């Protein structure tokens, strides 16, 4: 959720001034460089012999819980001159609109589900959620998790479907599979070990493993349904934080809390109810060797999406309140002796669909949504970041969503239907909410000296086509100076601009009647008789919050 203060205005003007750099702070004389907008961030080899560094979960919780207020707005970085996130070791634009159903459902999964024989090599038990590590018949290592007995299929589906959604959006995720097997097919390795609740590790006996498997819900035919996550390829370097940069990665130049792909992750998390988006649920790995070596940044652990909280159904508070009480709504709960019932306390959950858990689109407000405890990048999100993410959310068609949810392999089609329907409703809520805080015009182009664009709010049925105002100007790429062409109030490129220098720049600021607070400015470069879009600035307006 964005919490924006009056100082946002300052940041907004900075953005409009063109501080939409990819991240390196090189002193520029030119606003647009010849290769703008870049589609991919160049990356140098990761040759530094670094070592893994873990993150203390409690410390992360404590320090971030202290910073629940919105920070002073800072510009969004990690974007090209169009405001888009270029491909990098963090994010890959997957061209969702052209992905086939099979590609969507396959996602990152190239290895295939585990194949027998299965050899269990290590396990842990905390008495609630059993998990173990196993080798399959090909020697691949998988981390295996199970559903809670109270909600069969819930957490395993969440882990698989969630990873596919985040992959389709553009993030790096592990290969997660649902696999069903007979318990006796899981054989203990001679070197298998188990870590008991006391913390003591010792060789695992068959009885230990059977005890572990007793906690796994059984299907009617005695088989068990598990989620197997293929070990990430490469040298694991530990989680990434949602603030600062890694000191051992040459390509990590942008403070994470300013990366648009990490700020915008908040919108995806809200859509999918990924309340557990935190550092500990990420992993950086050095992939490749020599000149190809790169630090790749992964998101992990999607067991707490939708209505799942991994080991139980989702707490209704999750997504609306932080774990530590910090909101006015919570203060109101104290002062009214609990007689104020927030809307999330009265929503309905599908009680008869245990595999769904507590998931609904009722009372879902993408702007008020919260992760379990403050994530620095999420707190720093600006409307422009949210707009970028909302655009991506809206590119998922109903069929795309259904195709991905089907990979949860629910035994009851009603669970698939419910989650699909809910995600569609939440998707629309995301678009409807964030398209009000930016002028959502896209596909900007000049053809035959006429400006063309499409309003996404209109495309998706959230608004009627408004009347627009246009202000054309010539743009000096060296100085950043603008010279407004008077009397140019249509989509036609004014003749004095159309007949200007052969490699000149022009721009047009579009605003909608009735929303003077929002505008989109497009910059075009004349190249070989055509106009190429090289930049977009968006004047946004923050939502007002209770």
């Amino acid at each position, binding site marked *: 959720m964005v919490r924006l203060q009056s100082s946002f205005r300052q940041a907004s003007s900075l953005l409009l001034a063109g501080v939409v750099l990819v991240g*390196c702070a*090189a002193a520029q004389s030119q606003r647009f460089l010849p290769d703008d907008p*870049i589609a991919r*961030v160049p990356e140098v080899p990761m040759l530094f012999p670094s070592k893994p560094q873990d993150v203390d979960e409690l410390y992360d919780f404590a320090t971030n819980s202290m910073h629940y207020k919105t920070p002073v707005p800072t510009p969004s970085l990690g974007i090209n001159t169009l405001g888009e996130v270029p491909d990098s070791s963090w994010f890959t634009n997957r061209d969702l609109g052209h992905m086939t159903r099979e590609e969507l459902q396959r996602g990152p999964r190239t290895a295939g589900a585990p194949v027998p024989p299965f050899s269990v090599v290590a396990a842990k038990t905390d008495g609630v959620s059993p998990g173990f590590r196993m080798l399959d018949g090909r020697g691949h290592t998988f981390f295996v998790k199970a559903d809670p007995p109270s909600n069969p299929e819930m957490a395993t589906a969440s882990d698989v479907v969630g990873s596919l959604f985040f992959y389709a959006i553009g993030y790096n995720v592990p290969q997660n599979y649902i696999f069903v097997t007979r318990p006796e097919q899981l054989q203990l390795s001679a070197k298998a070990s188990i870590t008991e609740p006391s913390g003591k590790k010792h060789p695992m006996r068959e009885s230990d493993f059977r005890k572990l498997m007793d906690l796994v819900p059984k299907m009617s035919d005695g088989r068990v349904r598990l989620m197997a996550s293929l070990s990430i390829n490469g040298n694991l370097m*530990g989680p990434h934080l949602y603030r600062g940069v890694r000191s051992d990665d040459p390509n990590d130049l942008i403070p994470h809390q300013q990366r648009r792909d990490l700020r915008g992750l908040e919108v995806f998390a809200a859509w999918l109810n990924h309340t557990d988006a935190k550092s500990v649920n990420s992993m950086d790995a050095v992939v490749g060797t020599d000149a190809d070596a790169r630090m790749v940044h992964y998101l992990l652990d999607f067991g707490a999406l939708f209505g799942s909280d991994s080991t139980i159904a989702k707490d209704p508070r999750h997504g609306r309140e932080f*774990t530590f009480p910090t909101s006015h709504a919570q203060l109101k*709960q104290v002062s009214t002796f*609990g007689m104020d019932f927030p809307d*999330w306390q009265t929503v309905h959950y599908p009680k008869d669909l245990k595999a769904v858990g507590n998931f609904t689109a009722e009372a879902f407000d993408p702007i008020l949504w919260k992760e379990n405890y403050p994530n620095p990048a999420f707190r720093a999100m600006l409307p422009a970041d949210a707009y970028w993410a909302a655009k991506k959310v809206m590119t998922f068609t109903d069929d795309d969503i259904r195709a991905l949810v089907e990979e949860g392999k629910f035994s009851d089609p009603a669970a698939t239907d419910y989650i699909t329907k809910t995600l569609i409703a939440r998707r629309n809520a995301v678009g409807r909410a964030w398209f009000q805080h930016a002028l959502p015009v896209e596909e900007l182009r000049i053809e035959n000296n006429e400006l063309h664009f499409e309003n996404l709010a209109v495309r998706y049925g959230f608004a009627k086509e408004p009347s627009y105002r246009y202000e054309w100007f010539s743009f000096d790429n060296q100085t950043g100076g603008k010279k407004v062409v008077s009397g140019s109030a249509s989509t036609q490129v004014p003749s004095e601009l159309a007949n200007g220098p052969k490699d000149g720049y022009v721009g047009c600021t579009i605003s909608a009647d009735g929303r003077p607070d929002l505008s989109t400015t497009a910059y075009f470069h004349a190249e070989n008789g055509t106009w190429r879009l090289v930049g977009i600035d968006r004047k946004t307006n923050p939502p007002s919050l209770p």
Partner: protein
Amino acid sequence: MSLKDSSGGQAVVRVDSRRAKFLAARELLYLLFVFTFLVVSARGARAQGSSEAPDPPPAPPLSRTDDIAAAEKAKAEHLVPQAMPHGEQVFVETEKKAIDPLFAPPNGIGLTLGGLPTGGGFSLGPQYARRDLLRDNLVSDTYVVGSTKLWWRGQTSVEAPSLLDGHLSLRLDAAYEDAASVYFYGEGPNSLRSGKSNFRREFTTPHFETAVHLAGNRVILGYRIGGLLAHVGPGRLSDPTTTVYAGDDVPGLTQQSHFVTGTGFVNLDFRKPGFSNPSGFKLDAENTQFWDKTWHAYSFDLLATQAEYDFTFANGMHALAFRARNETTFVQGNNQVPFYLQPTLGNSDDLRGYDRYRFYGNGSSLVTGEYRWSVAETLEMAIFGDGGNIYQRPGLIGVRDARGDGGIGFRFKNKQATFMRFDVGFSPEGVHLWFVFNPVFGKLPRSF
């Protein structure tokens, strides 16, 4: 860290309750730990923030790609291993070297908090616990705690909490407890507040308990056999009971006994877990026979029952919770119930608007209602009302001489478990504040 139930030192400990206590205790200490580290962590956050992007390269770029690549190459010249911020390092080291070994030791020597009966004050002491015996199937726990009020207790126990696939538990324990100043106001419902006195109560108790766990621990049946060596004397505060009251008026004041005890118990728990409170019905009942082996004058039976019903609404964020409890003693012939084993009312979990141990009698009845609402995952509030009476014989059960109170409470929670509670009770006898580490509807009270 371990945290003992302050309402009774020898509560039946099973797998779940042991873990819950263990985790709750960790939660509490971590909470303190976390707040201690607020300043340090803020510094750490700044330290993390300081590892920002390096200075830009000086040469003007030819392209955006060159520009970025130049910055990356410049950074590549100055890479250092990723390190924890200073604040986090201190936090982790302190946790690893000081907090965990002392307060959350998986095995070995540590510290324990609590463990004394109510009224004992803040208590702390060394503990030696092993949870890893027989591959985590046997737990041994030995501790000694002393309090600010000079009460103390030592206990050793060994327990197999989950035999036969969790269907059987065995426990053997022995304890010595010195409650240096337990209040006594006289017997009966009309005892006067001005009759306040205090006595010293020393209990030495060995127990052996076996229990059968059925239906996924929803049904527990068990029997506990043991002994009680009781000694009562003047309390360490002014107005000792032995001076204020005559021995003839208070059974057991001048004659102490050694008892053999046998307790049969049943626990039925049909509640469903919820997000802040469980919902459903719970019933605990136990009958303890005390055989006086010294004077043969103080043998009696104590039948204690407690029923709890919780109703949740608003997606589990609000709850109405009701509890009814009765303790009745039965004597044969001329036997009497010694005052130091009589049911009492006035405590952090019964009549919260009255002094601790305000009423003594041969029986007690109690009803409690609470309206609870969740403020946050970690905080719940409650408005409560308590009503109860003390009676000298079963025929006097009723509302006659009943006492009532009301109040408000703040509960600090870890999921469903309350690990810390601050209740304020109001009654005609004044305002009472309770800061305790146990749930209000806990186990049946047991003083021995």
